[in-house]
């Protein structure tokens, strides 16, 4: 484990200023520790000297030592107050930095994930959503102890050791030499132990993540397990998994706790060595008691931050491992500027609404190393309802993903404007998305009201969508209501009123209801933005015959308005209503009269 990953400083600006402030506070802390030790040692030495005189001159009993020591005691009290204030300041600075850094990393990596998907890396297997949720949520919280307990001590270590050592050297060279000889042993052992446990610790973190994924998988699948009366067997399974995890973790801990052991041992042994050597020199009268006590007080302080680093090593390692997951996401983000839009010759704010064909040629798409399409040619003209058919698994949804720019492909996907004579430059994925309204196989609803889901946060008063105002909220409500009624949802249905609040991932609606809302969402986008292309994946899977017929009528009229409507459907009604049916299994295109 690197004590401090430079990527932390790069990706989280808050960590940089924290290091500066922590260093300043650390310096002040070291100064106060030295002052405290010096005052305490000299008070005790003076008391011993006074007691010596007292032994020789018993008559002195009436005179008091205390008044003489008042300035030193007052000084000690001031130093104590200062130390308390600094301790408070360090804690709050660290807490502030931790939350700031977490926010910066969380938002940065969320943005990086989005950029990755937008740039066509959507298929990367590391982006399992449960994993990403763990990394961006609970995973990042592992940074709390890293900031509050590990980093400040690390900074303090860097400052305290040289400062304390040089102070010791001015007072007692022998002690300074003892400390200087034992100290290097610690980093040496830390590096050795850290080196041997590094991979084991990373593996451990992965296993923890895997266990939490398995746990979620089991909980999510509880209903299915119960259907087949398998729920009780999973307990045994779970117990075995946890036991395996315990064995693995303990194996790692036995070694990684050794670093703490070495630190503890070095610190206490050097205290013992110094105490004994100072004691022997005091007997011989070669040393002042004040110096001896001062040295005894400073030596453990020199080791204290290092010991704290060691004690919190395990917590910090977890934080670092969690941060590494975030860095992985951040490192994988497409460099800014990489996804530059290639301007389409025909596109301008005004031209966007014109009808556009969908022309695909020599398309090759891979998924998991296997080619889904190889040299696919396909055309869906504007003003027509095209139905894509073919057995499941043939790649209909994959084709949509490629059109939307979520998958890398070879070949061309063009959206030529009809009145531009069919010539057009190839658009980037983002450029194509601008022109498309799409509803996928999964509904993709979020928490929020049904209206918010349909308008996708573009609906408020004065909200602007690419230069076009969606209009007043009353206007957008009207738009949403129309779209809902086009998918067979009446305004009087209390389950589906616009202000009904849904849970995360649209929880609260049945699959069919959610799907219909998602289609309405695509219709609203098409109409409010005048999207020339409308792509729908299995829109009627959850509709009854009447609702399906109504949706088909709607889509026909969208096509009549000049849109290119492409629908993936297995349903006979859709095939019969289509202007064009393309079977992806044979790539035969059947044009209906």
């Amino acid at each position, binding site marked *: 484990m690197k004590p401090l990953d430079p990527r932390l400083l790069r990706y989280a600006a808050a960590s940089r200023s924290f290091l500066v402030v922590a260093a300043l506070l650390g310096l002040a802390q070291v100064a106060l520790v030295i002052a405290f030790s010096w005052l305490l040692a000299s008070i*005790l030495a003076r*008391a*011993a000297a006074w*007691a010596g005189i*007292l032994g020789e001159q018993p008559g002195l009993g009436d005179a008091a030592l205390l008044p003489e020591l008042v300035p030193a005691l007052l000084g000690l009290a001031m130093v*104590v107050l200062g*130390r*308390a*204030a600094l*301790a*408070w300041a360090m*804690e*709050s600075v660290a807490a502030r930095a931790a939350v700031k850094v977490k926010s910066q990393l969380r938002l940065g990596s969320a943005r990086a*994930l989005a950029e990755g*998907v937008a740039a066509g890396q959507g298929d990367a297997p590391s*982006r399992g959503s449960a994993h990403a949720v763990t990394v961006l*949520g609970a995973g990042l919280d592992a940074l709390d102890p890293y900031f509050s307990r590990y980093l400040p001590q690390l900074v303090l270590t860097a400052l305290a050791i040289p400062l304390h050592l040089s102070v010791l050297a001015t007072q007692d060279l022998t002690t300074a030499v003892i400390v200087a000889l034992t100290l290097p042993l610690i980093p040496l052992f830390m590096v050795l132990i850290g080196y041997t446990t590094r991979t084991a610790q990373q593996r451990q973190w992965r296993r923890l993540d895997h266990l*939490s994924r398995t*746990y979620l*998988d089991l909980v*999510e*699948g*509880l209903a*299915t*397990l*119960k*259907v087949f009366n*398998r*729920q009780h067997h999973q307990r045994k399974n*779970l117990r075995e998994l*946890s036991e395996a*995890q*315990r064995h693995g973790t303990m194996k790692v*801990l036995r070694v990684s706790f050794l670093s*703490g*052991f070495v630190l503890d*041992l070095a*610190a*206490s*042994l050097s205290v*013992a060595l110094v105490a*004994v050597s100072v*004691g022997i020199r005091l007997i011989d009268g070669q040393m002042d008691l004040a110096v001896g*006590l001062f040295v005894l007080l400073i030596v453990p302080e020199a080791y204290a931050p290092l010991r704290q680093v060691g004690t919190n090593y395990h917590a910090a390692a977890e934080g670092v491992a969690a941060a590494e997951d975030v860095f992985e996401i951040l490192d994988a983000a497409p460099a800014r500027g990489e996804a530059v839009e290639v301007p389409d010759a025909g596109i301008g704010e005004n031209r966007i609404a014109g009808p556009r064909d969908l022309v695909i040629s020599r398309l090759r798409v891979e998924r*998991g190393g296997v080619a889904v399409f190889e040299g696919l040619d396909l055309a869906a003209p504007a003003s027509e309802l095209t139905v894509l058919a073919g057995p*499941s*698994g043939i790649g209909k*949804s994959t084709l949509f993903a490629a059109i939307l720019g979520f998958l890398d492909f070879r070949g061309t996907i063009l959206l030529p404007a009809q009145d531009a004579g069919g010539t057009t430059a190839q658009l980037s994925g983002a450029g194509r998305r601008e022109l498309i309204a*799409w509803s996928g*196989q999964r509904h*993709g609803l979020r928490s929020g009201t049904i209206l918010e889901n349909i308008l*996708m946060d*573009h609906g408020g008063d004065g909200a602007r969508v690419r230069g076009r105002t969606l209009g007043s909220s009353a206007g957008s409500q009207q738009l949403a209501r129309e779209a809902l009624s086009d998918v067979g949802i009446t305004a009087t249905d209390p389950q589906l009123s616009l202000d009904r609040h849904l*849970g*995360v*991932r649209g929880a*609260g609606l049945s*699959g069919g209801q959610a799907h219909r809302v998602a289609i309405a*969402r695509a219709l609203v986008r098409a109409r409010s933005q005048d999207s020339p292309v409308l792509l729908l994946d299995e829109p009627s899977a959850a509709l*009854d015959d009447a609702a399906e017929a109504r949706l088909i009528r709607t889509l026909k009229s969208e096509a009549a308005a000049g849109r290119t409507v492409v629908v993936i459907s297995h349903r006979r009604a859709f095939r019969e209503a289509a202007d064009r049916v393309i079977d992806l299994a044979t790539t035969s295109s059947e044009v209906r009269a």
Partner: protein
Amino acid sequence: MTVTTQDKAALRQARSLLSASRPPWRQMAPGVLFGILSGLSAVLLLGSSAYLITRAAEQPPILYLGLLVVGVRAFALSRGFFRYLERLSTHDAAFRALSEVRVDAFSRLEPLAPVKLGPRRRGDLLTRVVRDVDGLTDLPTRVIQPLASSATVVVATLAAVAWFSPAVALTLAALLVVTLLLGTVATEAMTVRAERRTAQLRGALADEVVDLVAELDVLIAYDAVDAQLSRVQEVDARLRREALLGARGAGLVAALLAGGLGAAVLGALLLGIPVLQPAVLMGPEMTLGFAEVDPAVLATLALIPLAVFELAASVPLAWSARRRVLTHARRIAEIAPEPERSEKAPVGQKGRSSAPEDLALELHDFTVHWPDAPSAVSLPVSVRLAPGENLLVTGPSGAGKSALALGLTGFLAYEGRYRTAGGAADALSPEQLRSQVCLIEQDAHIFDSTLRANLALAHPRGPEEAGDEELEELLRAVGLWDWAQSQHGLDTPVGMFGSLISGGQAQRIAVARGLLSGAGVLILDEPTAHVDEQMAQQLLEELLGAAGGRRSVVLMTHTQVPSRLYSQSLRIEPAPRSEGPAAG
């Protein structure tokens, strides 16, 4: 804040969960003992070093210091050694307990599926169950062990100090009490609300992150990434504010400990110096009586607080860890209260004997209730199905077809009469009922494993009993064999939540499970929703063919089904004013 009975019940639940996550004392004892030994070594190392140095300054004959020198070295060694052992044994005990807690939480969630677990917010569930269960490990390592060990060491040290100077011991004790009281009780008042709210906000943040990450393609396609990011940002900012409020407590504790330590040193000096005596000479006849303070004793008394306060620093940490653990336990208890032991072995009639030979399923005035709903979902239905007969159930969406399916498989309470080949359904345990009437869910869960594991789990005698040939036969029956062969056969991975397969394939896997289950009646809830029309017909025919013989199928659908595929049909109508969550 008033404590309602509900709160009390939640607290009781949380405590019972906590006691489950506390390792037995037998396992905790070594950790506590090693902690005490390590703490005592630390105090003795500092005390004996200070004593040694001050005594040495009096220049006694060197041999009188021999024992002290040995002591100083021994304590130096034993401190680190015992600390290492302590950390290992407490962690081991904690992990042992964690395994039990995981299983316990799973058992608590189990009765809630599928009816009460359905609309749960998934992101929240993830953070709760995983985070909170993991959080319970802190109980032995960060709460019980430090509290037990440091309390013992501090009390022992105070007793020793009291022998030299009762006044100093009293002062030290008073300062410890004040510091720790302020450090625990006062900061608790300060942070408890903030922490409760951060726990909630963390759940909310996880939800927003799920909404962001799970459907990134939708957000991108609708230009809504920035909007969702700003929602994440907004919750994150609120969480940040609350977390900072909660962190004030930590700063206060640090300041209190530093101040308390200084005050204890000053107190020892102020109380010790006025009663200071000439040094007692070291030697065989050395006598250091009760409450006699000479320079070496004064130095020891002044330095002991350094070690004592280092130990005491673990108390506020342990206290706030205890609070966190309790919050974790409460959240788990809240989502999943302790299961009532209800699913007992069935009583009454013994299986088939009481049922007529020619019966697969019989319903009479059968209706189903969503839990806590005032009225039944749909109007009562009656039907009688002989083995091998198939029933088609139609009805508008929302009429309660899914509810009926759940009722037939014992997941929802029903009214009316219900008999299966095994006899009256209410004489069977839900598990027995489900082994005879198998539900093929509309959105069956696909486990993140292989095709084989996903199918084999349905085998009535356990997954290990399912042979490859049998599974391959199943794949052929549901039309997945060609696809599977083009992949890795039965070892084809299906991905988390079936992410590597299509919706239609997932549905076929679900159907294959039903066939494997050996149940006499299969309830098919919209099996062809994700399958193309030609395939749907074929699948239905294959399925009914595979079911064959004496197996019956109840098919819930809103699409057309050729009449030769079923022998009876039933149309269900929603009951007036029915209110149910998410009726499919």
